[in-house]
């Protein structure tokens, strides 16, 4: 399983501000290794962010999101102490889900 995400969720006014770093190769499928063989594509295809059982952000990604992806976004309705859960699935079916507690800001 991939390394855990680093998630920071904090209050910014009445919004929850989230910054997340994910650990993933995001291999494009266009790179060749030392022997000249093409390294197969291996990249996160879907990302879902939930809070209180509700999806607050979802995304479809292609191979041109950078390695070790980073995202920063904001949503309303969260309070300190509540949890934000971020999940991803990649094109090989690997998945990862991590959560963070919203801090006071």
């Amino acid at each position: 399983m991939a390394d855990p995400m680093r998630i920071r969720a904090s209050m910014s006014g009445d919004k929850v501000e989230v910054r997340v770093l994910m650990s993933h190769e995001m291999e494009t499928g266009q790179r060749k290794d030392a022997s000249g063989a093409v390294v197969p594509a291996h990249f996160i295809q879907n990302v879902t962010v939930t809070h209180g059982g509700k999806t607050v952000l979802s995304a479809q990604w292609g191979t041109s999101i950078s390695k070790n992806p980073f995202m920063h976004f904001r949503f309303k309705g969260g309070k300190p102490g509540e949890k934000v859960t971020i999940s991803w699935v990649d094109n090989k079916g690997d998945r990862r889900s991590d959560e963070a507690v919203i801090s006071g800001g």
Partner: protein
Amino acid sequence: MNEKRRELLKAASGSGVLALAAAAGLIKPGDAFAQQWNKAAFDTKSFAATLKALGASGSTESAQIQITAPDIAENGAVVPITIESAIPKTDTIAILIEKNPNTLSADFDIPAGTDPFITTRIKMAETSNIYAVVKADGKYYHAAKEIKVTLGGCGG
């Protein structure tokens, strides 16, 4: 996902059918909630073709979409980009990199209550226009920004 699974998921209306299908080995448990991935759109190779695949061919330019990114990226592997839409009822934001081998980079769904604001990092193969394509209230809008990609040197 293969055709059999797709048909099954479309036809299924209750968990009964899916359970049977899972038992038959046609789908794996969890596939029922497998998320969509718009392969056709991620395969396109031009701004126009991507718009078409997204159903956004009638997109109009809008000054209400702000793209924040450096004019010059020291390295094309990691280019920071922020897109913010001031258009009311924005519900999707897509990032397109015109000169990349595949134009579509990402497509974000913005539910109500979430700011139409996203920062991420993209890979750019070469100097190119970046397009932000926004869907708001059923209509499509876009903005563009050119980012130059350089080879920075030694990386110290």
